[in-house]
């Protein structure tokens, strides 16, 4: 049985993370930006699992578990916020939400 080096998984996770970052910067829709965060989280999870496997330890998996839980919580609250936003101003584009600026 041949062995897939850890570095492959790590590289893949790096690529996914980078794409997540790009999405975060590039997209305008609040919801999509949320999704890009989820994407980054997933990339990190992949790295976690890969390391867990590489070191034959379960801690990595446990951390993935926690990350997923946190992601769920984040999605719940975040999406509720998004709904409020959409109700208060009729746009989901972050570029329209520049009211912080004086």
């Amino acid at each position, binding site marked *: 049985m041949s062995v897939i080096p850890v570095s492959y998984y790590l590289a893949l996770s790096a690529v996914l993370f980078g794409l997540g970052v790009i999405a975060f910067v590039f997209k305008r829709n609040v*919801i999509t930006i949320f999704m890009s965060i989820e994407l980054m989280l997933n990339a990190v999870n992949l790295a976690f699992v890969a390391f867990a496997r590489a*070191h034959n330890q379960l801690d990595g998996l446990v951390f993935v578990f926690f990350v997923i839980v946190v992601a769920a919580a984040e999605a719940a609250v975040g999406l509720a916020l998004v709904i409020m936003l959409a109700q208060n101003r009729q746009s989901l584009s972050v570029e329209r939400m520049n009211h912080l600026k004086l």
Partner: protein
Amino acid sequence: MTVPFLLFFVCGALAVVGAILVIAAREPVHSALALVLVMVALAVLYLLLGAPFIAAVQIIVYAGAIMVLFVFVIMLLNAGVEERTDFSSIAKYVGVPLGFVLMLWAAHWLWHSQPAGAIGTAATTPAASSRELSVELFRQYLFPFEATSILILIAILGALVLAKREE
């Protein structure tokens, strides 16, 4: 080219394509679907890495619940094609290129790295059984576990409070 390698490259490619689609798609729903694709591909990779439990959880929670929630919200607000405004030149001329730099560089660096103490991902090592995982979770990580449960509870309440229309 053995089966694991094949699976790895196929799923990896699927994941990357999905991620790119997340960016490229103009319909939020399409982005969501692409993200689901990424997640499923990652689940397969987890299986490949001998973490079936995590894979299942990934599908159930991430793809099956969180993303459904996303799609649900998108439908609820029926968010159409996003408008391509460009008010932020920084994001355009600095952010995106930097993102690319980060991605490529990190990927390249990691590809050539051989993390200390890592022994490849030999399929010979047994898959982590859910029993071991749960033992780990409820013995060593009991407190964090409880803490996350509290976190979830708080999140639920917060979501309720936010979504609730005040009469």
